[in-house]
């Protein structure tokens, strides 16, 4: 079952992935098919599980200041910085709509 173009377009916009070519889209379809095997298990009356940690309870930390004060180290990762601030582009730049951008999906 192929994945609808609207869904692929939605994924490209949201997750900022680029399916690039038919092979990329096919890889996605195969991944979904692989995951769909989960549906073969009968889960009637079984509570969904979030994680294998579900029977534990979260560890609580004391409210002490133990970290921070490492601006220099963190800013070493920054491609660009201005006086101890990280520099980012001016707000989110949304992907153009499907009709207006060059994506493999355009041809679909």
């Amino acid at each position: 079952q192929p994945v609808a173009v609207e869904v692929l377009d939605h994924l490209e916009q949201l997750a900022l992935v680029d399916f690039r070519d038919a092979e990329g889209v096919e890889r996605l379809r195969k991944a979904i098919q692989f995951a769909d095997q989960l549906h073969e298990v009968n889960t009637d009356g079984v509570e969904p599980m979030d994680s294998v940690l579900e029977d534990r309870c979260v560890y609580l930390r004391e409210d002490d200041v133990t970290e921070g004060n490492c601006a220099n180290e963190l800013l070493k990762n920054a491609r660009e910085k201005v006086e101890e601030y990280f520099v980012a582009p001016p707000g989110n730049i949304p992907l153009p709509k499907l009709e207006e951008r060059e994506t493999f999906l355009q041809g679909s």
Partner: protein
Amino acid sequence: AAWGCGGVWCRAWQRGAGGPSPFLRGQRAAASSARGGAVPVGKSGLAPWVPVVGLEIHAQISSNSKLFSGSQVQFAAPPNSLVSFFDASLPGTLPVLNRRCVEAAVMTGLALNCSINKKSLFDRKHYFYADLPAGYQITQQRVPIAVNGSLSYSLCIDNKMSQMVTKTVRIKQIQLEQDSGKSLHDDRRSQTLVDLNRAGVGLMEVVMEPDLCCGEEAAAAVRELQLILQTLGSSQAVMAEGQLRVDANVSVHHPGEPYGVRTEVKNINSIRFLAKAVDYEIQRQIEELENGGTILNETRAFDSKLGCTVPMRDKEGKQDYRFMPEPNLPPLILYDAKSLPANMNHQQVVNIDWIHERLPDLPSVKRAKLVEQYGILPEHSFALLNEDGLTEFFENVVKQTQMKPKKVIGWILNVLLSYLKQHSLTVKESPVSSFMMADLLNLLEKKEISSTAAKQVLAELWKGEGKSPLEIVKEKKLELIQDQKELERICQAVIDGQENE
């Protein structure tokens, strides 16, 4: 019986030329009984509108360190100095929950009459923004820590303090979540500067049901919530420092019809602006719809300079948050006296009952006690609690003076408070101490000075020159003359003076 809304629309309605028509009056009655909400009028003769306002409030938790990391929580520090590797979302870091934040949320839930969920879960809410380095926020979307509460607040009817009505707004839920960093937009250089000091600070999101109907109600409800949070100490709730942020969801519809499209209004920086923003947006929507337009489901920002709402950039289009369980955090389990296992490590236990027993008196209880103990009016108790430190000042004066509290309150609220407001001072900064005030009121009570003289003395005391009330009275010869003979002599002198003209 008070109408549902003390706001502009009710008053405009009542002042309408010639009064409401029989048709509209009937409509109003139906709408009021159906929802208890206001029925404002747009253009005369057209069907009335019912505004619906729902608030989402984010309160920064008052704690030493952040929700999931050990970096410090502090306003105004050098950029990126309060940031840990986890806050910067460096790979390999994990969230570790801060106990104090959990306690703050439980306290707040209890104070707002919520059911506390003994098991709550954490989720990831995904969206891209420069101040959210992980690309997702850890929040509690599925099962939050507290649900189904209520907040009672009071409104003055008709702008007079003398008539107050109590209203309630339902609390849908309270959830723990991370704050994001701060973006500074540099439009000139077309870039955004990011400071992550705030990223990861603990927030309590208080989600209210859309039970409010105008700016005045919204402001009153938020003010009461602010007082409650400050009393609990779970948040300092200072809006100016971003510790309390309010977003308003606003829509309008005709009575009996389905709810209209709602807009979200952000960037509201004070309680006063909240009322303005809500009222503006209601009016804007009514005008738009009456002119045949439509309302877009969009996010708008309040422009405080212009007093209006404008569409917000970066918020176009519907967001898909792709909620998923936070895989790195097991469920948060809370206990009460009954469910507490015998051999638990105390440090790992948050006991709801223990917290409940230690809740301080909430504002509503404090007010009731003040009224009962001192015989003052309810609106006086509101005024006392509304100003930081004023209740304490009042009680200190009462302790040190023979004057009845009912008389003292007038001096505190009408004289002292207006002085403070005129000079933009807080009670803590008052040049007149409660001790001096009590001294002064004692002189008045013993009839050693007149009320007018007392006000003169207060004006002198206000200069803060360190003189006592008695010293000022003697200096300015403000003593009331008690001697009968002296009084006769003065009166005679005046009469003689008149005769000579």
